């Protein structure tokens, strides 16, 4: 009888682990760009048309020749295929968790612009405020632009390079951080966020909002 129990018990464990394995292996691919997203099917994407007063421009086939006095053209004239502009940010939550004095907290995410055969793009950056304590006006100071390796340097900043060169975030007007004229299918830039506080910094949770804007060339 004991042998039968053992076998049933082993079988239950085996089934459980099999299900566990199946569940754990399916959740990895969920957040990537769907390849189907590149298959936009339009009959004529770079079109032009005459217009009349208040006529919706929905027919991609121009029925009449272009009138130089009034027309609407979509897309780039030098690209004859369906090209949409795609912007991806890999992680929208930069968690520094609980800040500890003299212990820098570093997080990263990635910005990707796809379908750049249009000829170029730029990404601008704007933060709403410095890292500021919730329900308070106490904030963590901005970092001075430069190499930041020392744990006794305090502040908050970002880097786009691997050489520890950090910049402060802009708060008043958008600042262009990436300009590209490469014809790559996709370009990815890693952004590193770093914060370090000293012993006199008030204890609490600090937060802000950082906005990235991707714009194609004109």
């Amino acid at each position, binding site marked *: 009888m004991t042998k039968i129990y053992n076998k049933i018990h082993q079988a239950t464990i085996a089934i459980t682990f099999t299900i566990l394995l199946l569940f754990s292996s399916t959740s990895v691919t*969920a957040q990537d760009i769907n390849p189907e997203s590149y298959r936009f099917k339009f009959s004529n994407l770079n079109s032009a048309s005459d217009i009349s007063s208040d006529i919706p421009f929905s027919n991609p086939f121009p029925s009449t020749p272009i009138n130089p*006095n009034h027309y609407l053209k979509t897309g780039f004239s030098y690209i004859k295929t369906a090209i949409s502009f795609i912007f991806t940010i890999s992680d929208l939550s*930069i968690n*520094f968790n609980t800040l500890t004095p003299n212990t820098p907290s570093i997080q990263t995410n990635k910005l990707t612009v796809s379908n750049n055969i249009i000829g170029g793009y730029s990404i601008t950056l704007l933060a709403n405020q410095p890292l500021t304590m919730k329900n308070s006006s106490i904030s963590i100071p901005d970092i001075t632009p430069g190499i930041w390796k020392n744990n006794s340097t305090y502040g908050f900043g970002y880097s786009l390079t691997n050489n520890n060169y950090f910049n402060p975030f802009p708060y008043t007007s958008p600042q262009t951080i990436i300009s590209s004229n490469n014809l790559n299918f996709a370009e990815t830039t890693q952004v590193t966020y770093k914060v370090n506080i000293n012993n006199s910094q008030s204890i609490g949770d600090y937060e802000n909002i950082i906005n990235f804007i991707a714009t194609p060339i*004109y």
Partner: protein
Amino acid sequence: MKISSILLPRQFIKRQVFLFLSICLFLTSASPALAQTLSLSVWPPIIDVVLQPGKSISQTYQLKNLGNNTIITPSIIPFQPADEFGHIQLLPQQAPPQYFSLPGSFPLKTGQTQNVVLKITIPETAQPADHYLALLFQADTKSLIKNSGSTITGSITSNILLTISQPNTINHTASIKQFSTPKFLDSFTSIPFTFRLQNTSDNHFKTIGQINIFNPFKQKIATIPFREDNLLAHSIRQLTTQSSFLDWNPLFPLGKYTATATITPQNSTDSVSQTISFFVFPYKLLLALILFFLFIKLSKHIKLF
């Protein structure tokens, strides 16, 4: 046989079933701790509109969400050229003209495509002018910040080049600011050109033109067409070809060549052109041969001593 020995298998099976169901329930109810992502696709990336006062037009944009569920807020922001390569500088402090109507905020689920209709209505009283604007789609995705951290938001834009004009009043004019290449070039390297064009008119146009290259016998041997980029009013743009480079890659050129760049602004019959000349010879090879023979000669000379 004892009673307990009869009941034991049932209890045991119940316990096993309970264990199995508990694990299944845990697996199906627990949400995976994945990072929140933003991924937006917009088409078209640009529209070029010429409208008369009193007219209106609509354009449908296709916006697709390839990331997590989000809320989209469309808006219009003026821009100006940021450089000579077509990049834009947003001007959020400037108010856009009140010619545009857009929907308000709307939710956009993962994988969902939304048609967004932009309507442009030019009042009868509008003055002829160019307006350069970005249709901005701001995404607001739920943040997962705990304790200290930064919430990241993202936006994607599509550019609008709008010309308001009366019929037959647009007069595109341009001026070549720079057309150059090094005066002396090696026969085994590509010939790089720099071409900067200024729009001297009040309206944007497409840069339609090419560089024609002539050999020492005045025969046209190559044509390099410019990419049809948009040149905004009173701005300068450095032109390229479709491949983003303005190079000529001939097979062993030799002698004096001339290159003539010609631009005919869109809807215009007036062309602007400029001609430059340059010399091509294999000076690197010649230098290497001279050094080689010098070395041979010096070697023989040294052996004599």
